[in-house]
């Protein structure tokens, strides 16, 4: 087994990978095997399971199974994109702050503190009030929430590495700062990033799904797991599967991502879970 995949050998790692692969397959290929359209009613609202609709129908009489098969792409794509964006920004800020010996460091870190002094969900709701609900607002908002956290971690890793011999040697050779950051520092903070990324993804998925659940993210008639939970709440005693199915998918997704992240972190020797999934 390649070195990078060794984390899957631990118990939680293996289970996490298996569940994650299942959820990703459902989200990716689900729309191709969905028996019905996710948008058109096929029966009366909140029908129980039948041969026609294996998981019953939702509040508008649409096929729950088909909507579950369609509804994973949005949350996974939006959360993934926002984490990528958070790392792009957080890496730049963290490297600059960690390597700087001047005023840049305190200025960047104080700005990060300010962003962190608002509860994450409140920050998102403020943005939605100002800009309306859209995919862009969700991605940028969640990225902005995570960026200061990423920047802090990258900064402290950079500070640790920047006093080491090979970095000082590069500086003494007169190499450009961008070359030092990119060639000497970046490869050495990859383990820190690997240990952190699972946590960031879990958190991004939680936030995206929660905002969709509140009805302030994706809008009907989009098929989305978070939105489905909210839409079908009123029919719990008629067809609980309309809520249980999307709930199960989101639960499997977040638990699997967290388990894989935990296993990777432990393999890197960094205890990333220490603060829980919600730092």
């Amino acid at each position, binding site marked *: 087994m390649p070195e990078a995949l060794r984390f899957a050998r631990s118990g939680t790692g293996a289970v996490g990978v298996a569940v994650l692969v299942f959820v990703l397959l459902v989200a990716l290929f689900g729309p191709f095997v969905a028996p019905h359209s996710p948008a058109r009613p096929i029966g009366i609202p909140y029908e129980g399971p039948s041969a026609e609709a294996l998981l019953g129908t939702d509040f508008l009489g649409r096929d729950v199974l088909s909507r579950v098969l369609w509804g994973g792409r949005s949350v996974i794509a939006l959360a993934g994109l926002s984490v990528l964006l958070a790392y792009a920004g957080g890496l730049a800020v963290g490297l600059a702050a960690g390597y700087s010996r001047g005023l840049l460091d305190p200025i960047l870190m104080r700005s990060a503190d300010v962003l962190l002094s608002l*509860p994450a969900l409140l920050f998102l*709701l403020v943005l939605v009030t100002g800009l309306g609900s859209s995919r862009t607002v969700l991605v940028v908002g969640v990225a902005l929430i995570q960026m200061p956290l990423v920047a802090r971690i990258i900064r402290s890793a950079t500070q640790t590495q920047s006093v080491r011999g090979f970095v000082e040697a590069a500086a003494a050779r007169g190499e450009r700062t961008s070359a030092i950051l990119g060639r000497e520092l970046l490869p050495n903070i990859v383990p820190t990033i690997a240990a952190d990324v699972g946590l960031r993804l879990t958190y991004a998925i939680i936030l995206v*799904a*929660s905002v969709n659940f509140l009805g302030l993210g994706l809008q009907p008639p989009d098929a989305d797991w978070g939105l489905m939970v909210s839409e079908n709440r009123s029919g*719990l*005693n008629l067809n609980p599967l309309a809520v249980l199915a999307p*709930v199960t998918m989101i639960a499997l997704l977040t638990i699997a991502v967290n388990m894989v992240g935990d296993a990777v972190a432990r393999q890197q020797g960094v205890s990333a879970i220490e603060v829980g999934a919600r730092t």
Partner: protein
Amino acid sequence: MQGAALAMTTSVAVAAAPHRTSFARLALRRILGGLLTLLVVSALVFVGTELLPGDAASAVLGRTAQPEQLAEMRELMGLDRPAVERYFDWLGSVLVGDLGNSAAGYAAGAEEAIWDDIRSPLWNTVILAAIVVALMIPLSLLLGVVAATGVGRLRDHAISLGSLAVVSLPEFIIGSLLIVVFFSWLDMLPPVSLVPPGTSPLERPEILVLPTLTLLGATLAGSTRMVRAGMLESLRSDYVQMARLNGLPERMVVLRYGLRNALAPAVQVFAQNIQYLIGGIIVVEYLFNYPGIGKELVDAVAIRDVRAVQSIAIVIAAVYIAVNIVADLVVVALVPRLRSGRA
């Protein structure tokens, strides 16, 4: 040994007097810092909610509004003045406890003070949060200690694996699962937590059970993991070894030596969890239709009631920052050596 211990006590006694003043100074500094942060946050909230040119007046009147009507409504709501002026005006009135009038009120044709709208929701939220915190702290201490003292045994694995799973679940997932179990299957508890106006949620405690359980699930997992980690570290330390070698009963070693030294990091985790609770409560109140400040906020965002969002946001942010400061000060009070540095 004896001499060293004596020397330590005297040095602590000598240092105690200047420490007290430095604690007061530290507290003052942290409170001033918190107020400064709140000021910056208020600007952030103001700018964030007003990023779009389309304003609250058009939200109130809808798309069919005539330009004259819009102008009139803007004047009534004070929207015709420059943004900077409105910001300082808002800030000034927030400082004296006047949160302004809601757009929803203007839409209904009256000037409705936001403070009157949110007073009783705020109280409902405080009740729910207080119950959760009162249960979370002792429970996470208990579970953390039980897991840490049984390291590697079944009870530790069960608690650790359970908390790893629950820690990654969004609140609305935990809450929905609880509703399915306790309402759909067992038919024991109500799926919604409505509180008729003018009554207190405490009059019907059964409506508080599921929201409390949901928030406990969301926060307990994380804090239990941290208490366990802190306990493990302190159980491995020299003074615990020493206490054991001196033949103290294990129960006393765990509680008096182990737990006591794991408390300071735990306080920070509790603070994080209380802060986290503030976000979680928004989702849980919406899920259970519980009339608290979080539901009020979501409703205000849904109808783009800018003024109400700004005011509720600043109230929530203030609580958030205050929890942080209080936790820092409690930690410093517990661990005196932190007072010297810029903790």
